[in-house]
């Protein structure tokens, strides 16, 4: 990697100030950024580690909402977000233990990898991404591959997840990376069902609105029978064609509905 300065702020305000420096880059758990730096594919002048900010860590439950600090690791979410079982299960199946003990939800959502798990949970849950300057609805937050609504220097403080009546995340793993080749998160709320798909689309995580409509009327896997998914705008690579991913979207959605609890 190229040389860089490291800042280790202990407050959000100090972190925000540090991120104001020229070519500064926030560092969460580093599970994407550190390999990128090792490959010399990025050259920030300052890395601002968010790991020392206690205020952005932890899981809390308040009524129907689980709030997870942006600096909370996947391992902690898996262990402590039991109030939202589908979310805890998702976190517990990201990567391997080493990844789960370093990677953070804020880092994952800020990076918005098209194959990451968390974006589907946030989008399907209708979560709210709380930053140091505002609150952003998940529907407005995800803007394409590795693109989000975050501004330069904006930090994910927490993510507020409304707890659905039932939910499930079903991931079909890419054989090598074990990222989602296709992952589908289904969340059933009193006012309707939300379905978010990760791994599949060239546009990144998205809501499958036809499935949502069908499932809102009849929350059963059979309700999806008549739907078709087009492979046209799906990712096509060594691990599967767009048509294969489109097929898996339906299969995984059915499985998520069947497994939802």
């Amino acid at each position, binding site marked *: 990697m190229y040389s860089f300065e490291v800042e280790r702020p202990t407050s959000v305000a100090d972190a925000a100030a540090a991120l104001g420096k020229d070519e500064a880059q926030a560092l969460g758990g580093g599970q994407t950024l550190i390999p990128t730096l090792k490959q010399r594919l990025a050259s920030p002048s300052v890395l601002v580690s968010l790991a020392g900010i206690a205020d952005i860590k932890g899981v809390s439950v308040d009524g129907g909402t689980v709030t997870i600090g942006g600096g909370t690791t996947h391992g902690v979410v898996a262990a402590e977000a039991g109030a939202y079982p589908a979310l805890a299960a998702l976190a517990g199946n990201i990567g391997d233990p080493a990844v789960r003990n370093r990677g953070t939800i804020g880092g994952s959502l800020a990076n918005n990898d098209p194959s990451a798990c968390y974006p589907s949970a946030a989008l399907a849950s209708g979560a709210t991404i709380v930053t140091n300057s505002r609150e952003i609805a998940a529907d407005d937050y995800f803007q394409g591959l590795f693109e989000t609504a975050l501004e330069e220097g904006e930090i994910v403080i927490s993510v507020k997840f409304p707890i659905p009546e039932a939910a499930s995340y079903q991931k*079909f793993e890419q*054989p*090598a*990376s074990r990222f989602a080749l296709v992952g589908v998160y289904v969340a059933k709320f009193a006012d309707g069902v939300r379905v978010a798909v990760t791994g599949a689309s060239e546009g990144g995580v998205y809501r499958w609105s036809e499935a949502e409509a069908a499932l809102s009327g009849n929350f059963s896997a059979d309700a999806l029978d008549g739907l078709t998914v087009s492979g046209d705008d799906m990712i096509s690579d060594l*691990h*599967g*064609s767009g048509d*294969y991913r489109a097929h898996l979207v339906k*299969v995984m959605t059915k499985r998520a509905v069947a497994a939802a609890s």
Partner: protein
Amino acid sequence: MPKDHGIGASPKRREDVRFLTGTGNYTDDINVYGQTYVYFLRSDMAHGNIKNIDTAAAAAMSGVVRIFTGADFEGVGGIPCGWQITDVHGEPMQEPAHPVLAIGKVRHVGDPIAAVVAESLEEARNAAEAIEVDIEELPAVVDMKAALEDGATKVHDDLANNLCYEWGFVEDNRAAVDEAIKNAAHVTTLELRNNRLVANPMEPRVALGQYNRADDHSTLHTTSQNPHVIRLLMGAFVLGIPEHKLTVIAPDVGGGFGTKIFHYAEEAFCTFAAKACNRPVKWTSSRSEAFISDAHGRDHVTKIELALDADNNFTALRCDTYANMGAYLSTFASSVPTWLHGTLLAANYKTPLVYTNVKAVFTNTVPVDAYRGAGRPEATFQVERVVDKAARELGVDPIALRRQNFITEFPYATPVAVEYDTGDYNATMDKLEVIADIAGFKARRAESEKKGMLRGFGVNCYIEACGIAPSNLVGQLGARAGLYDAATVRVNATGSISVMVGAHSHGQGHETAFPQVVAEMIGIDESQIDIVHGDTSKVPFGMGTYGSRSLAVCGSAMVRATEKIINKAKKIAAHLLEAADSDIELKDGQFSVAGTDKSVAWGDVTLAAYVPHNYPLEDIEPGLEETAFYDPANFTYPSGAYCCEVELDPETGKVTVERFSAADDFGNIVNPMIVSGQVHGGIGQGIGQALLENAAYDENGQLLSASYMDYAMPRADDVPFYAVDHSACTPCTHNPLGVKGCGEAGAIGSPPAVINAVIDAMQSGGHNVTHIDMPASPSRVWEAMKG
């Protein structure tokens, strides 16, 4: 009762203490005074003419000691190929130059263009980025068949075309084979690809070159399976360093799997640059670099035809293979698709007529060479897939078809030049039927189907030729080396023993197993014996470890040397006991006079050898140290029968290996635990090849799976617990231990069982799929079932 010591016992592997406690001594652990670091600037283009390399700005950067380009290697030899193939016309293969650093052209992504030696790796890398390289991109040659078309772009401009050789074996049988196929009652044809693999040993390659100006001596520490081979190739053919001025040391090595057999440019570079800079030069491959610089494995495209008579007897087999050589000829690349492949196509069957045609092709890809099994997995996959397909076409039981055609009388001379000394293929199949509970498959299938899953059953046999190899024979076949091995048994004054062996252990457990043999022969405790390996200045000239040869060849040398020790020790004991040599018996470390209670202990004899106060100095020399070289009379022929059961998710195409059983005949066995471990590892790699691993290039010669993000290595949860059995034993008839070798069997024997099971699963679901290429990834399976 299992034995608790000596041959047949399973003591825990003594080397694992250091491997598991972080106290191993790997090449990258070795750091020396004044050490510099080299970073190789590698081509990111598959094919291009080098127009200009400007190193001026880079050379002025911080920490740079010197920058090398191909021009610095004018007058230095290229990387040699160790095996010359003679083609169907009786001509030698086309053999291109393989410079240490690219000269004139780059020929694959990863081809080294320049090398920066600097005080630190970071400084070397910084300077490498400042080197200005002007390369005119040329069309990449990737597809083998397209590479052989008229007018195809040439990888090597000075060769006639991209064909390294066309080899036919046995060429005299060609017409007869074709005739038999034409007249057969049934012919089964299969076209398949044996997928390209990256070996991925846990430890990437490392080289540390040193030069001592005072005595003009070069030392190379390297991650090699065969340090003497590297010393010979690099010293004699590349750098012109006589053997006494060159030491090659391969200390602890973290896995080889074949890819650390070969002599690589980076080794020659570090040795050369250490002298040129008068500083030690170290290179440590990154994992990313390993993907584009370690020789790859397999990559054959094959059409195979099996002819059967009306009674389902195999009458002829023909194999037409395109074998990818990559951009240059790696050390043993040329031998893999020929002598290590064509000679195995009789497999376990008495097929009377066999013909193999191999076209070896240059492409703009990483060189391809031996990978665990090397040619034999390719042969086994072809034969066992086409036999399985034939059974399905004929509607006969695949096990019965195999049994019907088994070779049952030994020795057996195959129509492809080798003679199997011994074997019992029905015995391993009998074992397999038991340990795999083949009778219970139907019930297990029913259980799977209740869950909505398909279940498939696949079986195959294998035979391999290992214990490589009789030097005289391989010399006739084009090998440019002998393939004997050597051992020195050095008995110390107080009776402990150091055994210096030419074989190299990089995970095989020699340090545990070899002492078991010597301990058994002398009757002393294994803890009294240590193995020394991996250092050309310490061990006799041996050819190293590959081809499941270590115990069969080097172990035989060790036995011979130990026999010499025992003979001499008996003479000493006879003197001490005042008896005739011929009356001395050795048992449990005691020399005794037959028929008396007079005896003398091993330690008294060894002490007498080194403190010869009471010693027959007029008859024998003092000391107790013997060396033996052993050149095998034949290959050894391990064989076995393997079975795989898979579950297949018809909705996603995902295949899960539920059961895997292996019944092997390895001849006699020294350490059954180590043998089981070798089989486990080999099956893991075979399942990896069959379901997961794929080194795929795009049409521009870019490696699509150049990291673990896209190259799927098998992980613990991809494989089941294995049932392995090696109790079916027909000892090798021509080496003193009766051993055959077990290192490659798992990787050779497992891929066809997996694919046969996948086919069975798909057909059980009503899908008329007769073949699927490896890896049978979920998407491929889904595409195949979709039709």
